[in-house]
């Protein structure tokens, strides 16, 4: 038999491709069906937020953060106000802290629901997407009522939040949590036990905790290896130390564990939302803050647990009303680095399964 002629092919995935969740390009070298090398090319959505922020006052930066991880805008808001408050030693009223925790955790749920929907869509299942988005829509409606926006909320301010919850809002949050609890069973019935799904994700894209740490992974990408690390517990900020919830970890560090971590984290976030909504006191939603915010000269690093991992801000201040330098530690950007390592030697059909489980948002990768 004559020898089959083989050669390596260079393939472009993206930048316009529905499965890359935005404008990501992956240059893949394939040998038949096997990926020999994969190189993510980023920057298509780079807006220079860090440069823009140098000419803005701290309050003016907040709406820009909405546009980074646009699936977790509340978390981005929280990251910046938390960093500035820590640097300035500002007090936040109790009611504002509770409202923050409620919206942040709701946003985490919404973000994980998008992951659930789009990940299954990537793998070829259409219907979970619709169920996930129907539930996410309810959260978006709650946000719409509290801040008037559905995606770019611009809700938090240094020292508190911009608007108090409207009449009956907190009760509606509690009702939503009760509703979502029932829906979670449906998701598990719909997806988790599906054999085709399991075939595609179990044992795919494995790495261990040491690798994850070396690649500076955070969030679910780190926890799926079994490594227990959640900033809400390990470096408590805001009022997270008051709530009773568990840190979800995986075991094998494969795509299946990352999927399960997302679902289980929704349950934990619901616990936090519920406790915060039950304990929320009356009172003001804005603390006493100077009219013009001036962060004392020096440098600061503070991070929150974003939906995708450690969302940190490094602020260099000269004591003026604008930052001298502000740098976002963006979890999506850092997490994406491991992709070439995960894809090497995989079959081509696993590319989207692996990429989807890393759960990136391109607005955050490129900033």
């Amino acid at each position, binding site marked *: 038999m004559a020898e089959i002629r083989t050669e390596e092919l260079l393939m472009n995935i993206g930048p316009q491709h529905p499965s890359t969740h935005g404008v990501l390009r992956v240059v893949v070298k394939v040998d038949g069906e096997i990926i020999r090398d994969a190189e993510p090319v980023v920057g298509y959505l780079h807006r220079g937020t860090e440069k823009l922020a140098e000419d803005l006052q701290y309050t003016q930066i907040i709406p820009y953060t909405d546009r980074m991880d646009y699936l977790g805008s509340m978390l981005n808001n929280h990251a910046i106000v938390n960093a500035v408050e820590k640097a300035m030693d500002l007090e936040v009223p109790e009611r504002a802290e509770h409202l923050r925790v409620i919206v942040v955790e709701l946003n985490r749920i919404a973000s994980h629901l998008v992951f659930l929907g789009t990940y299954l869509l990537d793998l070829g299942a259409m219907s979970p997407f619709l169920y996930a988005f129907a539930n996410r829509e309810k959260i978006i409606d709650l946000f719409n009522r509290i801040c008037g926006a559905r995606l770019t909320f611009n809700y938090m301010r240094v020292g508190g939040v911009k608007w108090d919850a409207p009449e009956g809002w907190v009760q509606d949050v509690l009702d939503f949590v009760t509703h979502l609890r029932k829906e979670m069973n449906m998701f598990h019935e719909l997806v988790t036990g599906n054999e085709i799904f399991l075939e595609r994700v179990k044992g795919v894209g494995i790495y261990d905790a040491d690798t994850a740490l070396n690649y500076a992974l955070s969030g679910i990408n780190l926890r799926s290896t079994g490594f227990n690390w959640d900033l809400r517990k390990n470096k408590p900020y805001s009022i997270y130390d008051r709530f009773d919830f568990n840190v979800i970890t995986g075991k094998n560090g494969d795509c299946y564990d990352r999927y399960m971590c997302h679902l289980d984290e929704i349950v934990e976030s619901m616990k936090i939302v519920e406790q915060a909504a039950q304990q929320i006191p009356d009172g003001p939603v804005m603390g006493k803050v100077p009219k013009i915010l001036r962060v004392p000269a*020096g440098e600061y690093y503070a991070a929150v647990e974003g939906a995708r991992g450690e969302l*940190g801000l490094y602020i260099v201040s000269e004591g003026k009303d604008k930052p001298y330098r502000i740098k976002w530690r963006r979890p999506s950007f850092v997490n994406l680095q491991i992709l070439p390592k995960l894809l090497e030697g995989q079959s081509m059909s696993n590319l989207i399964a692996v990429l989807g489980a890393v759960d990136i948002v391109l607005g955050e990768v490129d900033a």
Partner: protein
Amino acid sequence: MSEETKAPEATKAAAPQAAEETPEPVDPRIESATAKLELLKGKITAQFGADVIEEAFLAKFQPSFVIKNESWPAVVEYLKVTDELSFVYPEAMAGTDHMAKGYCEVYLYVHSFVLDMDVALKVRTPRDEAAIPSVAHIFSGVNWEEREIFDLVGIKFPGHPDMRRIMLEDHWQGHPLRKDYVVMD
């Protein structure tokens, strides 16, 4: 006995004058941060000599070191591989252009699970021909961060496996986060 009971009154009365003699209770956060700073300072000095640390200070409870440029990878690697230190988790990296002070600076924020603490490591380079030895071979997670710093701040990292721009196009002129960068209209 009577002296003892009198004592509090006496100190109260003398408080304005005695302010210097009885210092305010030290913030426990500063105390523990200072202890951590001294511990690391001692370790690094014992390994490399005193002159690799250009500055050691607390940036609001955060132990911070400015490391000599040439010794940068050696110190970072030492902090990572030494068992009792184990700064294995690179949380954040950033580059800053301090134009008025005449240097560029890279900031690396690493965490140790063994000591349960963070340390801020910094390294400086002149603004012209700015270069800092790469630590991408020590932490795979800073590979892209170094590329981003090169792209936006214009610091080269000799030893980096793939020193290209990451955000901007390859033909871009200048580095936007330099303070003297002129923004196109």
